[in-house]
């Protein structure tokens, strides 16, 4: 009877398309909202992922990566002396204003990297050479800085601008992941960064480190915490800490969470109700089948087959639409959009659950259906 079930499903194109539209819309709504939300969260910890280092040593009271709490300059040497640490380098991170030749001011995030190793440099360079940061007054920008500061005609490799009345010359443009605040990032060496910023008692923002091969990172991190009294995290842990802070303190979590939850509930309600109505509208047909000798189990299998067929089709179409939206609007990273397999799996499981639930409601109705309905 699978054949009959599928013909019933596909045969009435208007009903089938309505059903498919409902399910696809529900899936698209959830995946699109979820992906934007997750994209935003990923952006919130871009300052960590863009530097691509395994261990971050921070002030013990650090809340998130963009809320810098300077630590003692001697910390780098203290971390280097801890057993299991392969290397440790300083990192400066702070806000500053850049003044372009055209007189415009732009707030930037100044990132000072270890001059010897340039550890923390972006992996991909779009123009120029990152190694040229070692030249006098040299700075590098990320591609978002070029975009925010006026585009390639205004700023490119070789352009000169001022940071706190001091000369800065662009030697490279790097490709990075956009940050949550989208403030342009200017890279330079650690020592030069300290020359650009106003003098403070403490200037070291973070220490970036790596555990020796064979030394468990967790143990090394615990040793750093114990011996320095500072905070130490893997990049992942620091990223999650930052995401947690954003969720808790910005209202994004509640607002987006509510939207996603509503999308989920509305979407699934649409899906469930549409399928239930589909069954109810075919009740007389099912009654005729029952009268002709189809058992409730046979009808239940037909309903489940219909539910899962339309559910899986709707899932595919919904994911396709959401992905299309992502490709169109989030192209080149303009908008946060990140489809992750856990989200897709979650939606898939939820959809199967709602299909099963609506099918079960329909099956209960069919089980109670007296086939005599066909004679009325």
């Amino acid at each position: 009877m699978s054949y009959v079930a599928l013909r019933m499903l596909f045969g009435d194109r208007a009903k089938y398309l309505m059903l498919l539209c409902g399910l696809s819309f529900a899936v698209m709504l959830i995946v699109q909202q979820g992906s934007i939300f997750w994209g935003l969260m990923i952006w919130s910890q871009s300052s960590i992922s863009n530097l691509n280092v395994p261990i971050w040593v921070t002030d013990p009271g650090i809340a998130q990566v963009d809320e810098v709490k300077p630590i003692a300059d001697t910390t780098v040497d203290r971390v280097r002396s801890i057993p299991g640490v392969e290397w440790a380098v300083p990192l400066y991170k702070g806000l500053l204003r850049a003044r372009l030749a055209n007189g415009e001011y732009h707030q930037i995030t100044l990132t000072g990297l270890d001059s010897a190793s340039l550890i923390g440099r972006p992996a991909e360079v779009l123009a120029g050479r990152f190694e040229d940061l070692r030249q006098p007054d040299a700075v590098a920008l990320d591609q978002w800085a070029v975009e925010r500061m006026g585009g390639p005609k205004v700023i490119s490799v070789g352009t000169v601008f001022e940071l706190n009345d001091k000369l800065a010359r662009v030697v490279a443009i790097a490709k990075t992941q956009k940050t949550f605040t989208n403030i342009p990032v200017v890279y330079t060496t650690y020592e030069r960064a300290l020359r650009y910023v106003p003098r403070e008692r403490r200037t070291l923002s973070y220490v970036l480190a790596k555990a020796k091969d064979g030394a468990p990172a967790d143990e090394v991190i615990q040793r750093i915490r114990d011996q320095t009294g500072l905070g130490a995290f893997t990049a992942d842990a620091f990223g999650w800490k930052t995401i947690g802070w954003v969720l808790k303190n910005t209202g994004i979590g509640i607002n987006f969470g509510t939207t996603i939850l509503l999308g989920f509930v509305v979407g699934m309600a649409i899906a469930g109700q549409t399928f239930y109505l589909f069954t109810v509208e075919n009740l007389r047909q099912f009654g005729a089948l029952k009268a002709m000798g189809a058992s409730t189990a046979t009808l239940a299998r037909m309903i489940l087959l219909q539910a899962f067929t339309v559910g899986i089709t709707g899932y595919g179409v919904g994911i396709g639409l959401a992905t299309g939206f992502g490709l169109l609007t989030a192209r080149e990273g303009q908008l946060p959009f990140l489809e992750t397999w856990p989200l897709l799996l979650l939606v898939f499981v939820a959809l199967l659950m709602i299909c099963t639930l609506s099918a079960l409601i329909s099956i209960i109705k069919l089980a109670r259906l007296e086939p005599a309905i066909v004679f009325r």
Partner: protein
Amino acid sequence: MTTRDGSSQSPAPAVAGQETPPSTAVQVRGLIKSFGSGETTVTVLKGIDLDVYFGELLLLVGESGGGKTTLLSAIAGILDIDAGDLDVRGASLTKMSPGTRTRFRGQTMGFIYQQFNLLPALTAAENVAIPLLIQGTRNKAAIARGRLMLERVGLGDRTEFLPRNLSGGQQQRVAIARALVNEPKLLVCDEPTAALDGPNGQKIMELIRDVGRAPDRCVIVVTHDSRIFQFGDRMAELTDGRIVGIHPIQREVTA
């Protein structure tokens, strides 16, 4: 004629080519069926006794609301009864579990409805194949058999048509083919001509009589259409939930 429990029955009909009296296909005794509860209870069938024999076409007639369709539904095993006994081919429907009754129905009965009840998404041949598909016959074999049945009812050139592309009379022919495709022993028809005009109704009844009636099968037709009374062998008249008379039908003999 008096049956074993004293109920009144008309004589068993003579069936062409059959020397011995026909055996009973359906036996109904003391059937009671009510709907609703409490003060709103309506007793639709008030102790029905009825025998239907193999080889005959029995018409159930009577006023609207008299209980014809309810009795047909009960005999077909698609409606639970409150009291009484119901035997079809010697098997007691009332003692069967719902599952067994459903299987029994699929193997033993064919249905023809007033509204045809064809699945709109399926072709004529696929619709006819449904009872076979329910019994587990493979798709290709069932549909091939459906096509053969459609040829028997004169629709050999419409096998791949969807119901919406067929006339009312043609749709009812498809329904008849569907009802007969699994060689049922009991054919139940509820107002099979009600949705059709006069000539088409006559043709459908001719078809039911010619193709549907067989020595090892009985046909029960609920109708209020006096124009088709001539197609029956006997007529049972229901009024207010009781059978008030069962008469053999005299056919006009034409030269």
